[in-house]
């Protein structure tokens, strides 16, 4: 069912990761993504993997939740790593027919798979432990220097908040409309591609109509409460960088330096 899409949904909790400042979390996740891509030998890969695993345990979220988000990209991981086996020139290991499997090819595919999986886990770590509202709030603060260039940072983050807020509502709405059309004999599950696309029309049109109506109602409700953009707006929750945040920053920096050093000292397995 459409409701089962749980990828990246906030998972309530009180762990250390939940308590981290959202701005710090975003920046650290960005750093970690950099680390994932510069780790270019097996030891630094293992260190990265281990520290991500450490963060997963710290988050106190069942491992099952992470596995679910990995499951969504299984095909992508399999396909890319399979392609990478054949790609790569170097020491041939063995032949299957006319295809030569090289040592470099195998290394490539392992790295690609590991990087993809780690990327998904790291971004899930962020979205699973951060309230969407905190997330957009933090993004607004991070991009606030762009105000100098007349970028409407508050409006951007308000749009993001609204979009996130309406995802569950729209999913519910889609469910309702699908049921109503199925009750009239609409056949969504079978047929070839073109038939299936055409079967979506009776669902998409009512969905768009109600989404526009909702948007209009929301705009009026916001105006009624005197919303007029970000100028002079105060916040209920003020983001604050505390002791845990400094510890987290130091932890990630240590790993970054470690990986950089290993890259210099050890031979590069994969670029």
């Amino acid at each position: 069912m459409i409701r089962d899409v749980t990828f990246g949904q906030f998972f309530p909790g009180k762990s250390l990761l939940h308590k981290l400042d959202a701005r710090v979390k975003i920046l650290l996740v960005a750093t970690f993504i950099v680390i994932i891509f510069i780790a270019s030998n097996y030891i630094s890969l293992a260190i990265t993997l281990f520290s991500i695993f450490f963060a997963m345990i710290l988050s106190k979220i069942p491992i099952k939740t992470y596995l679910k988000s990995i499951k969504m990209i299984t095909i992508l991981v399999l396909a890319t790593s399979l392609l990478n086996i054949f790609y790569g020139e170097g020491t041939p290991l063995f032949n299957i027919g006319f295809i030569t499997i090289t040592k470099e090819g195998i290394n490539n595919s392992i790295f690609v798979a590991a990087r993809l999986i780690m990327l998904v886990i790291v971004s899930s770590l962020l979205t699973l432990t951060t309230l969407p509202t905190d997330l957009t709030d933090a993004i607004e603060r991070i991009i606030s220097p762009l105000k100098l260039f007349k970028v409407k940072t508050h409006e951007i983050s308000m749009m993001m908040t609204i979009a996130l807020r309406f995802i569950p509502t729209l999913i519910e709405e889609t469910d309702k409309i699908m049921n109503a059309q199925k009750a009239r004999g609409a056949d969504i599950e079978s047929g070839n591609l073109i038939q299936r696309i055409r079967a979506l029309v009776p669902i998409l049109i009512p969905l768009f109509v109600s989404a526009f109506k909702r948007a209009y109602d929301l705009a009026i409700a916001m105006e009624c409460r005197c919303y007029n953009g970000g100028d002079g707006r105060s916040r209920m929750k003020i983001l604050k960088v505390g002791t845990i945040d400094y510890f987290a920053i130091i932890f990630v920096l240590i790993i970054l330096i470690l990986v950089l050093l290993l890259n210099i000292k050890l031979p590069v397995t994969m670029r």
Partner: protein
Amino acid sequence: MSVIKVEDLSYVYGKGTPSEKVAIDKINLEVKKGEFIGLIGHTGSGKSTFIKHLNGLLKPSKGNVYIDGENIWDNSSKIRNLRFKVGLVFQYPEYQLFEDTVYKDIEFGPINMGLSENDRKKRVKMAADFVGLEYGLLEKSPFELSGGEKRKAAIAGVISMDPDILILDEPTAGLDPRGKDEFLNHIKRYHKERKNTIIWVSHSMEDIAMISDRVIVMNKGKVVMFDSTKNVFFRDKELEKMGLRIPQITRIMSRLKDNGFDIDSGILTVDQAVNEILRYLKRREID
């Protein structure tokens, strides 16, 4: 023979997750052909979940549903055909309208049934007649109609499949009083002419009292009463405990009786009440 038979039906939402919730719990009931059934219950009592089982939109966690004596999940490839036989009108059905004309929208069900163009034409006319939709509106876009007309058009979209069992989930919610009365009369006439089975979900006890033969009362996922309308509304104390009430007029009449007036207290509609009071006054004059 019973046209609907439900056996030990249970449904659990989100099975195996922390938010697991039993929506309906061991429901057993039978509905005879041609009956007009009212279904009442507090918000969250499982009414909507229950009716979704009758046309196979939800698969029971446990138990069976028989329509015309056949277990509907015996052959799940036939579920789509079942939906033409058991028409289900959801709450606020006007949100399902999507075609560029009302005519085409009402025709959607019959097209899915694979009917010929001639048959479809008849079906659309028939459905528009039954809900009281003017023919002039058929060529308009559904988005140009008023709220009440949209509602009628959407309900016609289900009636056009000519179902043997018609289930309506709060069809009069949000309609103005006149539109409501008008719609009640249309459905009454439809039921009389088609002689099919109707299940009517409502929060309005007045509506239920006026049209149903028997009433199902649901509370916390269970069917707690299933009896003739009169008998159900006789148990006002129990109903009130479940957050429901009896029709106003029934309450007035039973108060009158409590205060020593010798009248029948099982009165369901204002018309009946007027007759009963007139009869009482006449009797008193004679005495």
